[in-house]
């Protein structure tokens, strides 16, 4: 593991520990009150969810067209993180929605396309695990289609009639809300980088194991 890893883990831990205090200090929202504070973790995890899908897509494209095993390992790790952060988004969202909208779930564009993107990431993991030989390329092809979904998820909320807040909310946030939010965004981005590095390390060790098995056969 690289030298920067452990120090940054410590930084991430401290930042996460500090985030609830910043969030508690942020003002309440006029119509939604206390439950709106879920926003400070829901939005960063949504951004990391989409970012992870993009990383997976780009790595998959580079793997398909370049054949580099390093890119394949990166894609696998990113897919797993897409499932992880997608799960966070899809649980924190409904918890917020139950109070703010009165329902747990709505089949609007934003929620449906996010759920769909999450399922594509799950499908990637299933293919990698159960697809047999050649499944790395199969999954890479799938990841490319999944990446095409990401811009749609983001802009859909601005062009379709939906109850989900529009993307204009973030640029127009008041300063004290913005502070809590961007701090949380920094937390989650750092966490994403660290988890990605850790997961890629696991893939590297697996590759090392495979190479050892192969040399044993010779």
């Amino acid at each position, binding site marked *: 593991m690289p030298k920067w890893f452990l120090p940054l883990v410590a930084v991430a831990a401290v930042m996460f520990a500090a985030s609830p205090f910043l969030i508690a200090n942020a003002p309440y929202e006029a119509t939604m009150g206390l439950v709106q504070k879920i926003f400070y973790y829901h939005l960063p995890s949504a951004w990391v969810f989409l970012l992870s899908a993009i990383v997976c897509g780009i790595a998959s494209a580079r793997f398909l067209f370049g054949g580099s095993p390093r890119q394949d390992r990166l894609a696998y790790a990113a897919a797993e993180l897409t499932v992880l952060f997608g799960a966070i988004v899809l649980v924190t969202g409904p918890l917020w929605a139950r109070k703010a909208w009165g329902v747990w779930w709505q089949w609007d564009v934003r929620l449906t396309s996010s759920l*769909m993107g999450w399922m*594509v990431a799950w*499908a990637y993991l299933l*293919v990698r695990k*159960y*697809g047999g*030989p050649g499944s790395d*390329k*199969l999954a890479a092809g799938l990841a490319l*289609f999944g990446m095409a979904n990401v811009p749609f998820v983001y802009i859909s909320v601005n062009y379709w009639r939906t109850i989900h807040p529009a993307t204009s909310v973030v640029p127009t946030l008041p300063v004290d809300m913005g502070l809590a939010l961007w701090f949380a965004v920094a937390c989650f981005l750092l966490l994403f980088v660290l988890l990605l590095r850790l997961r890629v390390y696991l893939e590297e060790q697996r590759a090392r194991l495979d190479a050892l098995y192969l040399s044993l056969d010779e």
Partner: protein
Amino acid sequence: MIRTAWLVLKKDLTVEVRSLEIAYTTLFFAISCVLFFAFALVKEGKAPEDGAAGILWIAIAFGGTLALGRTFERERQSETLRALLMAPAARPAIYVGKLLGIVALLVAAEIVLVPLVAFLFQAPLLSHPFWLSAVLLTGTIGFAAVGTLFSAMLVRARSRDVLLPVLLYPITVPVIIAGVRATAALLQPDVELALVRFWVALLIALDAVFVTLALWTFEPLMTD
């Protein structure tokens, strides 16, 4: 390149016409789907609202998955896919040929399914034939574009029968949603053509994205 695609299509149609195995089994399966939904959802002789649109597209999706699986299973058994790939033909052309074959098969199934659904669910599906055809065609192309790519990729994979739906359904959700919304809009007593036009435009955009992605990735995905 168009010539190659046409040759592939002709070959597939010739093989299929000889036994019509895939056509009959797909059609029967799609009809049973529709009947299943009819039995499950009809209450006191009345179908649920908007039910016809959804059921039609589910039958197309399920039937299409079956057809895709069977078509490429046939290729696998006679090792013709490897032969095709070894031939000095442009890979994307092979994909286009296969895609057109699947679309033709699904359109043939839809010609039977649409009247059946209209009859069973008392839905005025045949009131705007031009727009319905546009919706069905663009939706089928979108579904088949992704389906052909994934089935071709899965030919040499393990658990390919289970993996095709796992890969295909999440990606084709936008196509199915657009298809169902457009069809449902056409079934309204006073049809909003602007809404239908919107969904068809979205379907065309999706088709363009999917076919482009498929053409781009077919070559590296099919090479060992």
